[in-house]
């Protein structure tokens, strides 16, 4: 199955059914089919060829979804770009992908100009999915949205195969260079077909699209919904700051599926925005990205007894999710442990020791995943690919998640945390090393250390930065924040800062991170 084929078949069967809803704008499957055919032709006409990368530099919107579908129809690979991320970081991505084209909107023109100025040569064309930037911006336009009308709207043929890459999602890399995870049509289609079968997704479903499009959970929202012929409701990112508005959105849109990250669910529970038997249309609530605290789960399960609750788990490298656990009943107490459960069909979870051998049930080991979700690897990075995608004599190709896990007596898998310096904060996977690398590059610090501190609040793991300025300089947290903002996206910004003359060292002469974590915890963090 190719991801975009689903749009054509839905448009043929139910042309007037609503496909996408964004604020007050709605489009049908027929419109999505026609616009994406027209945009695909514009991409091809502008010179894009099979396998070329097309950057999507725009906020989540109907145009952005049309662009995803159109890029695949043109036989190209889409690369969603985070419009909140600074130009310097985006330029690294453009440089690595060698985009043939960037599809953008007017509101991103300043960002695009910033990216262009970071690059030594800009060989990409720009397609504007609105009227384009102001004339004085110096950004050219291969085409604009109005040009769609000049293109035929009938289906377009391409020779894409299921094993071809459909999109590349960039995640945090410890050396400061983001890693591009390649996801094939077959990878994503496999999960979507399993999930739509497991959840019994229907054309009458009304499904949320809450995460940003550069976040792999949105892949399921978008392609899962289109595959089922259901309605996709785009959630404005600003709503995540306002828990009452978020609840009102679920209620008023009559959503049947809400897929979110634990930090947002915790925030909603903390402000007690869910009424008893609220959201009467809601059938299922799913989360992924990190562990949901049991008290939050209990809150939702008590308020929404008619809703089913499913924990999904899986890194981007194994496509959306690899395991699932539907909570059978409200946990009896806050100490209950929620497993990540069982592998999705076609995938396997392995708990192995340091010699890649299976370990006895109940013991803690490293979690590996194999099966149909496994990405072909990182974009143009053989070394990083080979370090985590391993050929195993008995198990075949396996991916090292970096998570610690054990197999329970119930044969379910339980997660126990990370084996490295990667953290999850507000659902985002972050290499703390990337933040340290960025801080060190500023040239105003003698040394720094970034640690994750578990908080009791809804933000989950808080990013904390301890630093010592270069002797003779005075550096405030605001100074650092301002400069760091140019290098990392907002979700990587430390929330807590601690200034030192020199960072504390352990007996081995290394920065004493456990002690730093204690210092932060002793302050207002925890």
């Amino acid at each position, binding site marked *: 199955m190719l991801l975009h084929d689903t749009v054509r078949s839905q448009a043929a069967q139910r042309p007037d059914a609503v496909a996408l809803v964004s604020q007050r704008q709605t489009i049908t499957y027929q419109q999505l089919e026609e616009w994406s055919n027209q945009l695909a032709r514009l991409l091809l006409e502008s010179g894009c060829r099979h396998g070329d990368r097309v950057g999507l530099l725009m906020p989540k919107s109907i145009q952005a979804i049309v662009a995803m579908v159109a890029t695949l129809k043109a036989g190209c690979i889409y690369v969603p770009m985070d419009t909140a991320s600074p130009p310097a970081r985006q330029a690294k991505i453009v440089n690595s992908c060698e985009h043939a084209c960037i599809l953008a909107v007017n509101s991103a023109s300043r960002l695009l100009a910033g990216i262009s100025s970071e690059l030594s040569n800009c060989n990409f064309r720009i397609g504007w999915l609105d009227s384009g930037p102001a004339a004085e911006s110096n950004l050219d336009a291969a085409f604009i949205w109005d040009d769609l009308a000049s293109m035929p709207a009938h289906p377009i043929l391409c020779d894409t195969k299921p094993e071809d890459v459909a999109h590349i999602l960039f995640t945090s890399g410890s050396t400061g260079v983001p890693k591009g995870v390649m996801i094939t049509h077959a990878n994503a289609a496999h999960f979507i077909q399993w999930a739509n079968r497991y959840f019994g997704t229907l054309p009458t479903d009304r499904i949320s699209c809450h995460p940003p499009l550069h976040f792999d959970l949105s892949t399921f929202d978008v392609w899962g919904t289109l595959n089922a012929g259901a309605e996709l409701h785009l959630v404005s990112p600003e709503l995540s700051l306002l828990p009452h508005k978020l609840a009102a959105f679920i209620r008023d849109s009559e959503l049947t599926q809400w897929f979110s990250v634990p930090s947002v669910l915790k925030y909603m529970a903390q402000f007690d925005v869910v009424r008893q038997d609220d959201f009467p249309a809601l059938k299922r609530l799913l989360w992924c990205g990190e562990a949901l605290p049991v008290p939050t789960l209990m809150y939702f399960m008590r308020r929404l007894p008619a809703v089913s609750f499913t924990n999904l788990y899986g890194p981007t490298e194994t496509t959306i999710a690899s395991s699932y656990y539907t909570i059978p009943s409200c946990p009896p107490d806050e100490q209950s442990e929620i497993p990540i459960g069982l592998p999705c069909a076609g995938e396997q979870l392995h708990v192995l020791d340091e010699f890649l051998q299976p370990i006895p049930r109940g013991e803690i080991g490293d979690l590996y995943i194999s099966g149909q979700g496994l990405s072909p690897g990182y974009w143009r990075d053989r070394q990083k690919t080979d370090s985590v995608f391993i050929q195993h004599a008995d198990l075949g190709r396996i991916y090292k998640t970096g998570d610690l896990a054990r197999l329970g007596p119930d044969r379910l898998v339980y997660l126990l945390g990370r084996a490295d310096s990667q953290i999850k904060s507000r659902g985002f996977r972050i290499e703390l090393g990337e933040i340290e690398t960025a801080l060190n*590059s500023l040239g105003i610090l003698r040394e720094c250390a970034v640690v994750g501190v578990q908080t009791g609040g809804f933000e989950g793991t808080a990013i904390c930065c301890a630093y010592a300025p270069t002797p003779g300089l005075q550096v405030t947290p605001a100074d650092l924040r301002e400069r760091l903002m140019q290098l990392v996206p907002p979700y990587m910004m430390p929330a807590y800062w601690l200034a030192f*003359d*020199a960072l504390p060292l352990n007996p081995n002469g290394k920065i004493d991170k456990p002690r730093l974590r204690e210092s932060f915890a002793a302050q207002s963090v925890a």
Partner: protein
Amino acid sequence: MGVSDHIPAGSPAPMSSAEVAPADGLEGEIRLLLLEVLAARVESADADLLEAGIFDSMGLVQFILALENRYGLKITLDEIDADSIRSVTRIVELIQSRGGKDQAQPSSPEFHGRQIPDAAS
């Protein structure tokens, strides 16, 4: 490229919080509060704070708490919408529409909220 280019070698890092606060009343105070609570320097009163990712949920809650303390107001999250916190100008309007009264000295050096004051070893 690289922002370190903007820092002349060997010079002290510029700007203390006092230099950020302009002499124009409420607007300057809000900007100072953003600096104190979120370590966020805002370039203009109309800059889009949401687009710039100044707030995360925790940060927003702490900032509103700081507004409440400072201006003797009660602001609950369900009363505000995204537009009322979109820029310094809008926050000023929010405070004025609530009839907020300044409860503190404008140049108070006290840090509240999430930024941790000098804990140098």
